[in-house]
C-alpha cells in the first residue's frame, strides 16, 4: 500500500472509531442512564400512568437504538464515499 493510501485508511478508521464512540455514548445514556440508573431522577416526569424512566425501559431505548443504527449506517456510507473507500 502506498503511504498516501495508508494515511487515508488510517484517517477513515479514526473517523469511524470516533463515530462509534459517540454512538455508544448515546446508546449507554438511553439504556443504562435514562432507563436504569437515572430513573429515580426522572420519576417526576409522568408518561401515561408511569414515568419517563419506565417508558425508556419499555419503548424509548428501543426507538433510540433504531435511530442510532440508521444514523450510523447513513453517516458511514457517506464517509466511505468521502474517503473513497466505498465498494
Amino acid at each position, binding site marked *: 500500500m502506498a503511504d498516501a493510501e495508508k494515511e487515508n485508511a488510517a484517517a477513515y478508521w479514526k473517523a469511524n472509531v470516533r463515530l462509534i464512540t459517540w454512538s455508544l455514548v448515546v*446508546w449507554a445514556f438511553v439504556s*443504562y442512564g435514562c432507563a436504569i*440508573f437515572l430513573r429515580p431522577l426522572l*420519576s417526576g416526569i409522568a408518561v401515561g400512568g*408511569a414515568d419517563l424512566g419506565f417508558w425508556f*425501559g419499555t*419503548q424509548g431505548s428501543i426507538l433510540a437504538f433504531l435511530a442510532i*443504527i440508521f444514523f450510523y449506517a447513513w453517516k458511514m456510507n457517506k464517509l466511505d464515499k468521502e474517503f473513497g473507500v466505498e*465498494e
Partner: protein
Amino acid sequence: MSQFWINMLFVGASFALYFGIAYWARAGSTKEFYVAGGGVHPITNGMATAADWMSAASFISMAGIIASGGYATSAYLMGWTGGYVLLAMLLAPYLRKFGKFTVPDFIGDRFYSRGARLVAVICLILICVTYVIGQMSGAGVAFSRFLEVSNSAGIWIAAGVVFVYAVFGGMKGITYTQVAQYIVLIIAYTIPAVFIAMQLTGNPIPALGLFGTHVESGLPLLDKLDTVVRDLGFQDFTADVGNKWNMALFTLSLMIGTAGLPHVIIRFFTVPKVADARWSAGWTLIFIALLYLTAPAVGAMARLNLLDTIYPEGPKAEAIRFEERPNWMKTWEETGLITWEDKNGDSRVQLYNDTNADFAPVAAERGWKGNELVVNNDIIVLANPEIANLPGWVVGLIAAGGIAAALSTAAGLLLAISAAISHDLIKNIINPKISEKSEMLAARLSMTGAILLATWLGLNPPGFAAQVVALAFGIAAASLFPALMMGIFSKRVNSKGAVAGMVVGLITTLVYIFLYLGWFFIPGTASFANTPENWLFGISPLAFGAVGAVINFAVAYAVSLATEAPPQAIQDLVESVRTPKGAGAALDH
C-alpha cells in the same frame, strides 16, 4: 368448523408455503448453502434475521415474563435489542467485508491458529445446541396444544419440516422461509394485541395503548394495573428495582451476548455489500421492534384481563366460582399449564401473592389460605385470544405463529452448527483438500445429524435446556464477542492472546454459573444457594456474561502484549476488513 380444523388449516397452509419456498430455493453450491449466494437484499435479510432471532421464547414466553415481572424485565427488552447496535457498529460490516462463511472462519484466519478455530467451534456448538433445544420443545408445546398430537409427535413433525428446507436449501432455503415465517409470526402476534388494546384502551396500537387510558375505569392503564395487582399483594407493575447494578449488568450481558450469537452474525454474510450489512442491521431491528414494542403492552393488558376474569367485580370483591370459570381455563387445565387447588374450601378461585408477609393479614381477614391458581407464563400469549374472547381464526393464527417462531430460529441455529462442522472442522481442520461437491454433501449430512441431535435433545431435555439465557448468552458474551471485536479493532492481539482470552472468559463464566445453578446443572450440586446475598458483588449468574467478556478482553491483551506481535500478513488482513473497498473480490475465495 371446529377449532381443531381451523388450527390445522392455518398451520397446514403455512407449511405448504414453507415447502414451496424450499423447492424454489434449492442450494446448488456451498456458497449458496452457507451464505445464500451472498445476494440477499438488506431488507429481505432484515426480515429473515428478525425471524432467525425471535425464537419460541420471544414469541411464546416474553410477554408472560413481562406480565409477571413488570419493569424489571425491561432488561430483556433493552438487552435483546441493544445488542443490534453493537452488531451494526462493531461486527457486522467488517465480518461481511472479510467475506467468508462462518464465525470460526474469521477467528481461525485472523488469529492464524487451528486452536483458535477449534475453541470458536466448541463455543459455537455449546451456544447453538443449548438454544435449539428450547426451539424444539417450544414447537412441541405449540403442536400438542393446537393440533392435539403428543408432545413428542410435535417435535418429530417440527424436525421433519426443518429437514425439508434446511437440508436441501441450506442458507438459501432458510433465508426465504424465514421471511415467510416472519410475516406469519408478526401478523399472529399483532392481531390479538390490536384487539385487546382496542378492548381495554380504545387505541388500536398496543404500544400507545400501554400508556393510554383504561376505558372502563377512566384511569391510565398502568395506574389501573398497579392498583389491581397491589390489592392482591403483588408488587406494582411499574415498581423500580432495588439492585440497579445487577439489572444494568444483566442488560449488558444480554446485549453483548446477542451481538455474539453465531446464527445471527452469519445472516449478515448473505448481503451483497458492506454498506448493505449496515442498513440490514437497522432493518432487522425495525422488524424486531414491531414485536418488542408490542410485547410489554400484551403482557400488561393480558395480566389485567386475567385478573379481571378471576375478580369480575374487582380485586376487593369475591373471586369467581370454580364451576363458573371460562372455557379457556378448562382447555388449558388439560395441558397442566393452569392448576387450581381449593385451599380454603370455598370453591372460589383466589389468585394473590401469598409470599408477601405485609399482605398476609388482608388475606387472613378474607379467609384465604394460600394462592389457589397457578398460571404458567407461556399462557399469556398462547391463550390471549381466548382470554379476550377473540374469534377462532385468531387462535389458529397464534398456532401458526408460535410454530413459525420456533422453526425459523431452529433452522438458523442448525445451519450455524452444520456449517461449523462441515466447513470449519472437516474442510479447514481435518481435510483441507475436500472437493466442493464432497463439502456440500458433508454440509447436508452435518445438517441431518444436527437435526437428529436437536430432536433427540428436544425429546429428552437435559437439565441445561432451561438455562438458555445463562448459558447461550453468557458464552456468546464471554467468548465469541470479545474475540471477534478484538480481531477487528486491534492489530496487536495475537493467537496466544485470543485463545487464552476465550478459554479464560468461557471457563470463568461457566464456573460462576455452575456455582449457583449446579455443576453441569445437575440438581443439588450447586455450591451456593442462588440468592442475591450469596452473589459475588450482587451479580446474578445470568448477569455474569458481561464480566466474562471483560475478563476475556483483559487476558487477551495482557497475553498478547507479553508475546510477539501478529505477522504482517495478519495486520494487513485487519487493515483490509476495516475498509469496505474490494469486498466483492474477497467473497470469491
